[in-house]
Every structure is written in structure tokens, then in C-alpha cells.
């Protein structure tokens, strides 16, 4: 008996007699639930290798059994396992089915996190004469990042693989039809490569500047590290567009200014405070599943969680503190924290600033030495006078004064947060010391004009507290924790080294208005292509802007749907004079495919090769994606006819369809079609060193690529001593690798020195070539761009590697940014008055509450993901589609809804209106749900829903069955567009659409449950089309959030309807461009600061050079 029982005297005293006295009238049998089988009548079992249940839930087949592991059928577990029924055999037909699997490691390819997976390939069915298929995907327990865990999207890889509407072979727009008519014919990979390759060859053949700007590889979520970059690079083209400017370019701008790094990289597990800006990291997005697991670990150890988000996300709902901040005003809150850190003391009377870190690792010295800039700060009213001294103490005193206006009163008013919440946030922040982890990425920084300043300011309080030192429990930087070798198979090619730098600058991706944009201006690609006036203006100034693209190649990308101003995209894609040829390397149907010339089906998670790594923790791990069916076939002895096309051949043999992968595709098309005779200088970068007559193979490529990782190479050699390609084979068998663990404070590593030579980034510098400037920075000549570049820094007498910046320190003062025309924003700053907000409009959100004057005017928060969807590629996964149904209404605060008389489930008309130009863009009709989960004045509706299609299925000549189009994810719509106005109206839900073409369902054995579709998919609207492009004048990203006006829907309006004045949208884009940017001018000699990395394609000094005429 327990102690607590002994103390519960009342129970003892109240003891009653249950057994004495009269019998109960009830029989026990009428009452009992009856969950026990009576004494089991168990048949005798043959001896077998199974336990009736694994000994623990963490059981996983050991690596040595992965090539053959026999498992009991999942459906039979309920019957009690083999313990009761034995193994199924001829003699024991009622026994439990056992299946032999090969576990092929791979990695999820849905979101960016790259969690490890194993594909369970069914060998039993195959050996019995059936097809070869993946029965399920599970987590890969060897994966250092995901540790065997996955979210719903990972497990859904199987339903994506056997999608009933999977594109089974390459499709080509029917001859004589126009783009968008939906007339398709089957083609082969060879025919497609021949046509496309010839067009690319003919384009490059001229060799002029324009030819190098006329092929554009437009990549959606890459989920690999560097291979895609190599495609245009190897052709000498400045022709890479990423999706980053609708994704994360704002946050990157702020991080680049501090650290010249792409993003930060937190150590969640060891933090005392997890500070999330938006639902990103713990709900969905970068790097959801892995981050959430590590955040949970930290919380288990006592860490607190703060979520700053206008919306009560899942993370906010379980946080210690939810900070609903008016979207776009987050900067004010961060500067408030800075103010208190600088101007207050802790309970012992000590400074809150971590002086040891700030004094050594922040470039305060350069700011204090720049008297001209300090005078500008005085002129702008940021500080009262130029400090008399240059000392660190004078710097601290100066910024303490500068940030003092960011008071509790101000921030409560500006951010519309209750004061008690602000104060609580501050207390939590201070209590955690330097152990505060954050990931500044989404929502604020991509939602707003000046969103980048949110990221820039966000890091300030973290810097002041020492949390940015990259130490345990704090915040590190991306490039410390990531591995990028997917494009580094050069040694396997005939050429043997990387292609030379590219000599041209492509204005379609990098227009002169946006020299500091962190990534390509891809979201305005159609606007630029269609804007003759703009092109003429810049050509007149001496540029050579292309008027068209010869070949446009989206890769797993759906810009028509996911980018703003979708009708403008359709207009551009339809124009064969502007985009002469287009093809999408796409695993699924998409809205964009509809307007392309070719759809070339490429593989999903378990159907392709990629090296993929992400900075999810203070270590460097990588995933290796494998095509599971190919690997299984090869391990069973199958050999392809052509080893350079093994993945395609394997998929055809296994019955998956003519599904290929990019690595093999690009190597083949380059060698055999783009440059068959090598005259363009492209072929040698893709032909095999072993046999230059053919393309490089996967094993050759990855053997070379992984050879650049010393620890991986060593282990592979040890484990596969007799293998020809040990690196490849080890990664094929394991699917993941941890190259380096526990990476903390690498900036403090001594700069490598051998004898008299310093070694930095693989280059050797004699000590007498190295000079040291007045601030301790070690400088060498820059052989590419001229001038000097930094390789190290002296701190307290030690020469260290330092940060990645020009000063080798974190840059509170961004000197180069000031020189590049934006001096007033070269330090973290934010206006504190209405007048100031007008003057500093570049860093004030377009949805500021200043603009909300009427009762029905709102800020629309669009930038949050549904945790179980991923933009484009999850569209037809039945599992993900089912659980996401009806999950994306317009959230409206209950008080706002009450005031406007809006009830739950009612349709509302949401009209988008621009606060820069004053123009309306049109409206979408959506369902309203009043909730306390969004702050007053702010609506929320994720822009990741509202898929559409114009045909339920397409007929392919020569094929009996139609090919279904996105049957599980997109309802049928009717579209109109006339060059100025576009509309979309839903005409059929997807359940009805699927049932009327049952004969078209592919992979029937995997899709028996399609009769159970209950959802019609009609709950979303294509709001992205209504949204105009809002290019941020500095970071270049689309500022997603919108000012909207709402009213109840009228008779005839249906949820899903949209009406878009896309003529106005073009004007909105131009207003943002012309009123807000500071373009290149005649004084500029460079297109962009050379230290600010141009992602993807490396460029020569010639490409960077510019000289404009008036």
C-alpha cells in the first residue's frame, strides 16, 4: 500500500462490507465489457524468427538487415501477431503475412528540412512475380538531423509516389495548339531532349552576351545543395532564378548586413529561451520537424518558449508567452529590448550588455571612426551629437541614447501589444542570459516593405546579450552548419575542375533597380519581360537587357500559382515571342505546367539522387537521396542498358512510369544534345572522365562530390575497402552522414598557418602578402575583383578566423550598405512618429495601422504554412489533402466580426488595395471564421491554399484512359482573362471530379480507398493571383502582406471566386519600383557589392562591372 493511501484515512474509515449480506440481483456477465478473449485456444506454432511485438517502440531493423528484413503485415497486428496465429504458409493459411523488404535510405523532399527516410521496397511480391513497389516510408534512425522522426509530409511520400494522377511519361504540347489549351501528346525523353537540346544549342551557339542571358533555370524548393547552380554555370549563362524572393530574401538581407551570411542557425536543444518570430520552425517550415523535436527537448529541460505572431499558431498556443504583434512593427519591439538592455542593470547592479562579446566581436570601432557617418546620424536626429571619444564606452553610451525612444509606451502603441506582455517578454529574454535561440526567417521579414529591417533589428538584442556568439544554447550561422557538395562532382568530368566564372549579368534576374536584392528578382520575371518601356530605358543607358527568353525551365516550380499576380505570369507564359520554349521538370501536375511546352516528370523523395544538407543544429550533416526502386533492382543484380540513365530505366522496369531525375537528365542532355560535338565548351563539364564518350554516371559523380568531405571519405574507405566508388556506396547504403558535430564559436578558431603562410578558404597567403588594418583585420589582395579582402582578425593578440564579413566582426554598422545609397538604414533603426514613418517609408510596412482608417480595413497576414502542405508538390497526396481540408479560412478576431456582423462560415469578399499606389487589385471570396486566435485588426489566411485546374483530365492520343489532373487537390474552375481583368470561378468539387473518371485512376492497388474521398476542396481561394507584386526596394523580396477591405459576400458570390484587375497590378509593381528604389546610376562602377554573394552562378569582374550613361 502506498504512503498516500495510509494517509487517506477517510477511505479506510469508510470501508464497507461488499460481500456480506444479500446477493446482488445482477449477474456480472450482463455488466462486464468483455474485452478478454476467454482462455485462448492457441494453435501450436512453428518456430519462427519473429517476436509477437518489438521489445520497445524504438525498435528499428539494424543497418545490417536493411537489404533483407522480413516484417509482419501491419494489418495483421490487430489479430495478435504470430504469437497467436503463426506465420502464413500453405499449411497455415490463417497465419500472419510476412513480407521481405529492402530498406533503401533516402530523404524527404517535401519541405526543406531533408529528414531521413527509408523506403520499404517489397521484395516478396517482386520475387513472387509481381511488381516492385515501395510499400511505405519510415524515418531513417541514422539521420543525425531528424533522428528517425518525420512529420506527416514525410510519411506521405508514398501517397505522392503512387498518386492516381501521376504524370506517367513526358508530355508535349500538341502541335497546333496554344499554351494553356490543355492539349497534350505523349513524347519520349529522347524526343524531348532532342528538341530542347537543339534549341539550347542554337541559342548558345551565337556566343554573344544576349545568348548567355536567354536560358533561365527557375528552381522552386531545391532540396539539394548546388547541383542546380551548376546547370546554367556550366553553359556560361547567368541564368538561374530561385523562388527565394517570395520566400526568405528579406530575412537574408538583415542577416547579410550583420554577418554576411545567409541565415542564422540556432542551437535549440541547449537554449534556455526559445524565441520564435512567427509559427515558422515549430509549426511548419524551416526546419519544422527537426526544430520542433529539439525545441521540445529544450523545454523538457526547462526552457521557456515565446512566440511572436499576430496569429495564435500551434506553437503560440503551447508557448509560455504569446506576443501578438501588429504585423510589420516587430522592429519596434526588438529595439525596445535593445533600449532596456542598454539602459538598465540586472538585479545585482551589473550591466546587461555582454561587453566581453560586444567589444571584441562587433564593429563599433569602425562606426566610431567614421565621423562623417556619425554626423549623418546627428542630422537624421538619431543621436544628439557626435561623441567626443572613439572608445567602446562612448559607443555604448551613444547607442543607449539612440535607442532610448523605444519605450514601453511607444512599443505598446506601435505594436498594439499589451504592456504586461511586453514586460514579460523582456523578463524572459533577460533571464535566459546568452542562451536564447531564435530563427529569424519568415512572417515579418518576408511580409513587409522593410521586412529585412525586422531581421536586422531582431539580431541586435541577441548581439548585445552575447547570444550571437555561436555558443552552446545560442545562435550560430548557416554556413558553419551546412554541407554543399551536390554540384561538386567536377573531378568526375572530362574537364575535371569547376566551370569558369560567367562573364555576363542578366538583368531579367538582377535588374538595376535592385543591386542589393539578396536573391534573383524572380517574382517579377514576367513583369520585366513584358515591360518594353523599362527595357528601352535601360538599354538607352548602355545595358543590354534581353527582350525574351529562348528557353525557360521551371524545375519543381509552380510560379503561376504561388507567385503574386498569377494572371501576369499566365500572360507572359502564353507569349511565345517572349518565352520561346519552356519545360517543367515536375513530379506533379501544376498550374504552371498547363502553360509549358513540355512536362518532364522527375522523381520525388525516393526516386532521385541529391545531396542535401541544412543548418538545423550546430553540426554538419547531409542526406543522400536515393531512387529506392533503382537501388533495390541493382542490389538484386539488375543492370541498366545505359548506366547513365539507370534511374529512368529502373522506374520503367518497376512500373512507376517514365520518371527520371535531374542529375542524369542534365548530364545526358548536355553531352548528347546541347553540345554534342563539344564546340560550345559545355560538354566537357558533363562528360565522364572515365569514358568521355558518355555522360557522367551517378556513382562517378557522387564519388567525386563526396571526396571533398574528409571524414566521409575516410569512413567510406574503411567500410568499403574493395569498392570502386566507396563514397557513393556508403551513402547509398546509409543515406546520411554526420561530417562534424558540436560546432560552436568557429569565429574564434585560430586562422590556420603553416610556416610562414596563412591558409584561408583553401588559399595560401605568404605572411608578407597579408596586411593588417587599423581595426586588426587581416587583408589580402582580391585576385578576382581587385581591391582587398579580409581573411582573419586579431582579437586580444590572437589571429582568428572571425565572422564572414568585411570587418570579420558582426556589423552593427554596415559601411557598405551606407555607401550603396542607403546610409540612413545602415544601422538598426525604426521611426517613432507618424512623420518619421512617412520619411522612412522604405522600412515601414505597407500594412501599418496608420493605413487602416475605416472599420472594415484590415492587415491580411498571409505568410504562414499549413503544417501538412508544402506549396506545390504535395497537391495530390491524398493523405495530406484530406487532413488539410477546410483548414484555411480567413481568421478574423471575434470583436471585429461582431462589429461587422460576420458569422462563422459566412462568405466574405476580401478586396486587396495597395498603400503605395492607392490602387485596388480586385478581390477573392473566402470563408470567415471569427476567432480569438488573431489579433484585432489583423486577418489571417495562408497563401498556401486555393489550388485550381481548368480540366479534370486530359486525353492523350493513342491512350485509352485519360490522364487525371490534380484530382485530389484542386477543384475545377472556369477562367476568363482579357489582358486587363482575370476571373476564376469554381465549377466542380474534386470528389465529383474524381468519381466521374474512375477509369483514369492509376496505381489502383494503392488507391483502393479513393472511394472514401469526402472533401470537395472548395474551401480555398487563389488569393495569390489577386495580390500584386510588392518588390521590397532594398531586399527585393515580395512583401506578402496586404491591406484589405472586407464586406459580406453578395448573392452570386461563391467561395473560391476571384476577380483581378491585373492591369492595376502592373501599375502597383511599377509604383513600388519607381517610387521606392534607388537604382544604379552613372556614378556606379559595379552592379552590386562584390563581397555580397551572388547566389548560384559565380560571376567574373567583367560581369560585375557597369558604366551607365545618362
Amino acid at each position: 500500500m502506498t504512503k498516500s493511501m495510509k494517509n487517506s484515512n477517510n477511505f479506510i474509515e469508510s470501508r464497507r462490507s461488499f460481500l456480506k449480506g444479500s446477493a446482488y440481483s445482477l449477474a456480472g456477465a450482463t455488466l462486464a465489457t468483455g474485452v478478454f478473449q476467454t482462455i485462448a485456444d492457441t494453435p501450436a506454432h512453428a518456430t519462427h524468427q519473429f517476436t509477437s511485438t518489438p521489445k520497445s517502440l524504438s525498435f528499428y531493423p539494424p543497418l545490417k538487415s536493411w537489404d533483407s528484413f522480413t516484417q509482419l503485415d501491419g494489418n495483421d497486428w490487430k489479430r495478435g501477431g504470430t504469437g497467436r496465429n503463426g506465420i502464413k504458409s500453405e499449411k497455415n493459411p490463417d497465419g500472419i503475412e510476412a513480407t521481405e523488404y529492402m530498406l533503401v535510405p533516402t530523404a524527404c523532399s517535401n519541405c526543406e528540412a531533408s529528414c531521413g527516410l527509408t523506403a520499404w521496397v517489397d521484395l516478396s511480391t517482386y520475387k513472387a512475380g509481381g511488381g516492385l513497389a515501395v510499400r511505405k516510408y519510415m524515418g531513417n534512425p541514422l539521420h543525425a538531423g531528424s533522428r528517425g522522426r518525420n512529420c506527416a509530409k514525410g510519411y506521405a511520400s508514398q501517397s505522392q509516389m503512387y498518386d492516381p494522377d501521376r504524370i506517367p511519361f513526358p508530355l508535349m504540347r500538341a502541335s497546333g495548339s496554344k499554351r494553356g489549351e490543355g492539349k497534350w501528346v505523349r513524347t519520349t525523353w529522347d524526343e524531348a531532349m532532342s528538341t530542347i537540346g537543339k534549341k539550347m544549342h542554337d541559342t548558345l551557339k551565337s556566343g554573344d552576351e544576349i545568348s548567355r542571358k536567354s536560358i533561365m533555370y527557375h528552381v522552386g524548393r531545391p532540396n539539394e545543395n548546388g547541383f542546380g547552380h551548376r546547370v546554367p554555370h556550366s553553359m556560361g549563362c547567368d541564368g538561374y532564378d530561385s523562388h527565394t524572393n517570395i520566400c526568405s530574401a528579406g530575412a537574408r538581407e538583415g542577416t547579410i548586413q550583420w554577418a554576411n551570411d545567409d541565415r542564422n542557425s540556432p542551437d535549440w536543444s541547449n537554449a534556455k529561451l526559445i524565441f520564435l518570430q512567427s509559427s515558422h520552425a515549430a509549426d511548419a517550415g524551416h526546419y519544422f520537424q527537426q526544430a520542433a523535436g529539439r525545441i521540445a527537448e529544450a523545454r523538457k529541460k526547462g526552457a521557456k518558449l515565446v512566440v511572436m505572431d499576430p496569429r495564435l499558431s500551434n506553437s503560440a498556443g503551447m508557448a509560455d508567452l504569446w506576443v501578438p504583434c501588429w504585423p510589420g512593427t516587430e522592429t519596434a519591439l526588438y529595439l525596445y529590448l535593445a533600449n532596456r538592455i542598454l539602459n538598465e542593470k540586472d538585479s545585482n547592479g551589473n550591466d546587461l550588455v555582454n561587453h566581453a562579446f560586444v567589444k571584441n566581436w562587433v564593429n563599433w570601432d569602425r562606426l566610431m571612426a567614421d565621423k562623417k557617418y556619425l554626423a549623418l546620424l546627428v542630422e537624421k536626429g538619431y543621436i544628439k551629437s557626435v561623441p567626443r571619444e572613439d572608445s567602446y564606452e562612448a559607443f555604448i553610451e551613444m547607442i543607449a541614447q539612440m535607442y532610448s525612444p523605444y519605450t514601453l509606451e511607444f512599443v505598446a502603441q506601435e505594436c498594439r501589444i499589451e504592456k504586461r506582455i511586453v514586460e514579460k517578454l523582456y523578463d524572459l529574454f533577460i533571464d535566459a542570459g546568452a542562451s536564447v535561440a531564435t530563427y529569424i526567417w519568415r512572417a515579418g521579414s518576408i511580409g513587409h516593405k522593410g521586412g529585412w529591417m525586422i531581421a536586422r533589428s531582431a539580431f541586435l538584442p541577441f548581439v548585445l546579450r552575447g547570444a550571437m556568439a555561436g555558443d552552446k544554447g545560442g545562435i550560430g550561422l548557416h554556413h558553419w552548419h551546412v554541407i554543399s557538395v551536390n554540384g561538386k562532382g567536377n573531378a568526375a568530368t572530362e574537364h575535371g575542375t569547376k566551370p569558369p566564372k560567367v562573364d555576363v549579368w542578366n538583368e531579367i534576374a538582377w535588374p538595376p533597380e535592385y543591386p542589393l536584392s539578396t536573391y534573383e528578382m524572380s517574382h517579377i520575371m514576367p513583369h520585366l519581360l513584358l515591360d518594353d518601356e523599362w527595357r528601352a530605358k535601360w538599354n538607352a543607358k548602355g545595358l543590354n537587357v534581353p527582350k525574351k527568353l529562348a528557353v525557360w525551365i521551371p524545375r519543381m516550380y509552380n510560379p503561376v500559382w504561388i507567385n503574386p499576380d498569377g494572371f501576369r505570369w499566365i500572360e507572359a507564359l502564353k507569349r511565345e515571342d517572349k518565352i520561346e520554349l519552356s519545360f517543367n521538370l515536375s513530379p506533379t501536375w501544376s498550374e504552371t505546367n498547363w502553360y509549358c511546352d513540355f512536362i518532364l516528370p522527375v522523381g520525388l523523395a525516393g526516386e532521385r539522387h541529391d545531396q542535401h544538407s541544412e543548418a538545423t543544429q550546430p553540426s554538419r550533416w547531409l542526406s543522400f537521396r536515393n531512387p529506392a526502386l533503382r537501388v533495390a533492382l541493382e542490389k538484386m543484380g539488375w543492370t541498366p542498358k545505359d548506366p547513365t540513365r539507370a534511374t529512368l530505366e529502373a522506374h520503367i522496369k518497376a512500373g512507376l512510369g517514365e520518371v527520371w531525375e535531374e542529375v542524369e537528365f542534365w548530364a545526358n542532355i548536355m553531352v548528347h544534345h546541347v553540345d554534342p560535338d563539344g564546340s560550345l565548351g559545355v560538354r566537357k563539364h558533363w562528360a565522364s572522365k572515365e569514358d568521355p564518350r558518355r555522360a557522367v554516371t551517378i556513382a562517378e559523380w557522387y564519388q567525386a562530390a563526396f571526396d571533398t568531405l574528409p571524414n566521409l571519405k575516410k569512413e567510406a574507405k574503411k567500410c568499403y575497402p574493395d569498392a570502386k566508388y566507396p563514397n557513393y556506396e556508403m551513402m547509398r547504403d546509409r543515406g546520411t552522414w554526420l561530417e562534424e558535430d558540436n560546432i560552436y564559436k568557429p569565429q574564434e578558431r585560430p586562422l590556420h598557418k603553416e610556416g610562414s603562410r596563412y591558409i584561408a578558404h583553401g588559399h595560401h597567403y605568404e605572411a608578407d602578402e597579408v596586411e593588417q588594418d587599423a581595426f586588426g583585420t587581416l587583408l589580402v589582395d582580391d585576385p578576382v575583383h581587385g581591391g582587398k579582402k579580409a581573411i582573419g582578425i586579431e582579437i586580444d593578440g590572437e589571429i582568428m578566423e572571425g565572422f564572414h564579413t568585411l570587418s570579420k566582426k558582426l556589423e552593427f554598422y554596415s559601411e557598405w550598405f551606407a555607401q550603396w545609397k542607403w546610409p540612413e538604414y545602415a544601422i538598426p533603426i525604426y521611426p517613432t512618429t507618424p512623420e518619421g514613418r512617412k520619411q522612412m517609408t522604405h522600412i515601414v510596412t505597407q500594412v501599418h495601422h496608420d493605413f487602416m482608417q475605416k472599420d472594415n480595413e484590415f492587415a491580411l497576414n498571409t505568410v504562414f504554412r499549413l503544417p501538412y502542405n508544402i506549396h506545390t508538390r504535395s497537391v495530390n497526396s491524398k493523405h495530406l489533402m484530406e487532413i488539410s481540408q477546410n483548414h484555411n479560412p480567413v481568421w478574423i478576431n471575434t470583436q471585429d466580426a461582431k462589429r461587422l456582423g460576420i458569422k462563422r462560415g459566412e462568405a466574405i469578399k476580401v478586396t486587396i488595395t495597395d498603400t503605395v499606389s492607392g490602387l485596388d487589385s480586385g478581390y477573392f471570396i473566402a470563408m470567415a471564421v471569427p476567432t480569438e486566435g488573431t489579433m484585432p485588426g489583423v486577418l489571417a489566411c495562408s497563401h498556401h491554399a486555393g489550388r485550381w485546374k481548368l480540366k479534370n483530365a486530359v486525353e492523350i492520343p493513342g491512350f485509352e484512359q485519360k490522364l487525371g489532373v490534380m484530382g485530389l487537390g484542386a477543384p475545377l474552375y472556369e477562367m476568363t482573362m482579357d489582358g486587363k481583368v482575370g476571373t476564376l470561378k469554381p465549377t466542380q468539387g474534386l470528389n465529383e471530379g474524381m468519381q466521374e473518371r474512375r477509369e483514369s485512376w492509376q496505381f489502383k492497388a494503392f488507391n483502393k480507398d479513393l472511394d472514401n474521398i469526402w472533401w470537395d476542396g472548395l474551401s480555398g481561394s487563389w488569393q495569390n493571383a489577386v495580390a500584386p507584386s510588392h518588390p521590397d526596394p532594398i531586399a527585393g523580396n515580395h512583401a506578402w502582406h496586404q491591406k484589405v477591405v472586407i464586406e459580406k459576400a453578395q448573392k452570386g458570390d461563391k467561395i473560391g471566386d476571384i476577380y483581378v484587375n491585373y492591369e492595376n497590378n502592373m501599375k502597383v509593381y511599377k509604383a513600388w519600383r519607381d517610387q521606392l528604389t534607388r537604382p544604379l546610376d552613372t556614378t556606379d562602377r559595379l552592379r552590386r557589392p562584390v563581397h555580397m554573394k551572388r547566389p548560384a552562378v559565380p560571376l567574373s569582374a567583367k560581369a560585375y562591372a557597369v558604366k551607365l550613361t545618362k
Partner: protein
Amino acid sequence: MKQMKQEIQNRVTLYALISRLMLVEVDELFLEQLESDEVLLSFLPNYRDWDKRKTVKRETLMTAYYNVDFTNLFLMHLVPYESFYTREDQMIESGGENPVIALYNDLDFRVELDRARVVSADHIGVELEFMYMLCLAMQKALEAEDREGVCELLAVQHAFLKEHLLQWAPMFLINAKRESRTPLYHDGAELTLDFLLSDYEYLTDTLAQHCSAVA
């Protein structure tokens, strides 16, 4: 033996009643049966005297009161599983490592988890129903006048209470009584605890009295 036959009948009924109460939501039939037996009803005094039982429709009582309470006590708020209370890490062990399941297996009992709608066979309702099954078996042994079998079953029941139910159920039941929001589950928790303690004493005495020679 004769007295034991009378007692076993009541033990069977009581274990059936409390296991049923703890395992699934009540239904019309169960409430009807319970209320038809004055003696049983007397063990649930607050429930018996509760006004709402007489003034509110039974269907409403079930949907708005009893089922809400059940959900709170057995599904959401409290954790009615032995392994939660007895394991250091407070994890529910649903696999073969669970000693309760091993015991069931050793005695050739199988829990149909899908029928029970519980995640593990060491749920309080299942353990109570296991006692009910042992009592039924003992009843058969008594009818067959199998003295050795009776003693063996008494020993098994005694050991199961001592090593399992009484190791944790009191803590759960005290919590359940405190957390309950209806007289039905309040009294049910109290009844169950009282009965388990009383039954343990009964088994100890009976074993000493009748089975020392057999042992």
C-alpha cells in the same frame, strides 16, 4: 465453500460493474441495470441521491455530464495505465515489455485492444476486468468443487492485486475522485478503491483460512 460461493457471485458482479464503469462510456442499458439493483445503488450514495438523475433526461445526462466526465478522467486529463504510474519515465508501455501483458499471456488471456479501445492492456478497466475473469474462473472451480483450483485462483487474484492493482490504482482513483465532476464517477472511484482494499483483505484471510494446506 458455501459461503465462498455466495461471495464469489458478488465479487463477480462488483468487478464487472467497476471494470465496465472505468473502461467505456456508460450507456442506457448499463444505467438501467445499475439503477435496478438497490444494493449496488447503495454503494453510490451521492449518485443515488443526485437530483439531476431524476430531473434531467438520461440521454442528456449521458452526453452533457457522464461522457464529458469520462473523457476528462480516462482519456484526457488523467492517465489510467499502470505503466504510467510504475515506470520511472512515466511512459505507457504498450508492448511486450509490459509485465501485466506478460502475465495475461502466461495465463492464456488475450486482451482485444480494439474492443477495449485502450492503448495498452494495463488500463485500469482492463485490469479490473481481468479480476472479473479470474473470479469467473474461480466460480467454475467452486462449482466443480475443485479445491486446488480455487486456491490457485485465489492466490493469483491475491498476487495480482498486490503486485499490480494496489501498486497504482489507489493513486489513480484518489485523483479520479478529486477530478470527477459527476456523482457517478465520484462514487464509482470511491467504490472501486474501497472494494479493492476490502477484497485484498478478504483474499488474504480466505487464503489463510482455506488454502494453507493446499499451499
